[in-house]
């Protein structure tokens, strides 16, 4: 983080993700780092498509809506003074997030937490937990 130039913030359409974006923005303002805001969908219209997708529009369509909502909710928290790029990927979220971090030479990953679970292990959310454990770069958990 000595030379923190890129901060990765994986988002879904949740309050925890919004807090992660807000926290990453405050870090970016101090360090001048660029934000990579990433949404990962488990699947999309192309996942099963050789010629034509068998996924009904009711399902594939709503995945697209969730992705759009997640990125829109993140965008609201990013002031014009902070440079941010928005990305979308398809696959297993934790795997895609870690792969993205390697590709982009991310200096720091900022993840959100659920903040509503009272059961052990559910406080963080399984994706955040996996990122904290498996990431080769530093991870901040926003509150």
């Amino acid at each position, binding site marked *: 983080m000595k030379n*923190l130039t890129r901060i990765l913030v994986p988002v879904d359409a949740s309050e925890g993700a919004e807090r992660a974006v807000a926290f990453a923005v*405050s870090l970016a303002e101090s360090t001048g780092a660029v934000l990579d805001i990433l949404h990962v969908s488990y699947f999309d219209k192309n996942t099963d498509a050789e010629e034509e997708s068998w996924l009904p529009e009711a399902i594939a369509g709503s995945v697209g809506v969730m992705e759009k909502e997640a990125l829109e909710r993140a965008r609201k928290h990013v002031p014009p003074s902070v440079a941010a790029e928005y990305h979308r990927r398809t696959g297993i979220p934790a795997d895609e997030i870690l792969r993205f971090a390697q590709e982009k030479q991310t200096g720091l990953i900022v993840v959100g937490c659920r903040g509503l679970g009272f059961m*052990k292990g559910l406080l963080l959310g399984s994706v955040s937990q996996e990122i*904290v454990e498996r990431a080769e770069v*530093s991870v*901040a958990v926003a*509150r």
Partner: protein
Amino acid sequence: MMKNILVPVDGSEGSDRAVAQAIALAEACEAKLNFLYVANINQLAIKACLADAILEAVTKAGNVILDRAMQMVPSDVEKEAFSETGSPAVVILDFAASNDMDLIVMGSRGLGVVKGVLLGSVSQYIVEQSKCPVLVVK
């Protein structure tokens, strides 16, 4: 805005890396660094059974670790060292809450090395239970 950064230290390699990153962050944010060493001993047990010599040795070991962290900090960054006794994870969270810390910066692995466990038990507890953001340094 980030004004107070808490860095729990235990003298491990991971805690040294956490100190280095916390310094970089404190410089960028103009925040104060608060180093905390927690001697993992029950105070009652000390009073009851431990000889003064042992208590002194434990205190000295903590001070060496805190001094080393303090010396890494450039002179233009505000800093302070704290020493406590008790169960590390609990003491660290109490300290963070009662002193209005904005961020906890810590290593992913402390001194207790359990094979196959990627995140130390203290770090794991703090990541799950903390009320303020936690930065796990790799």
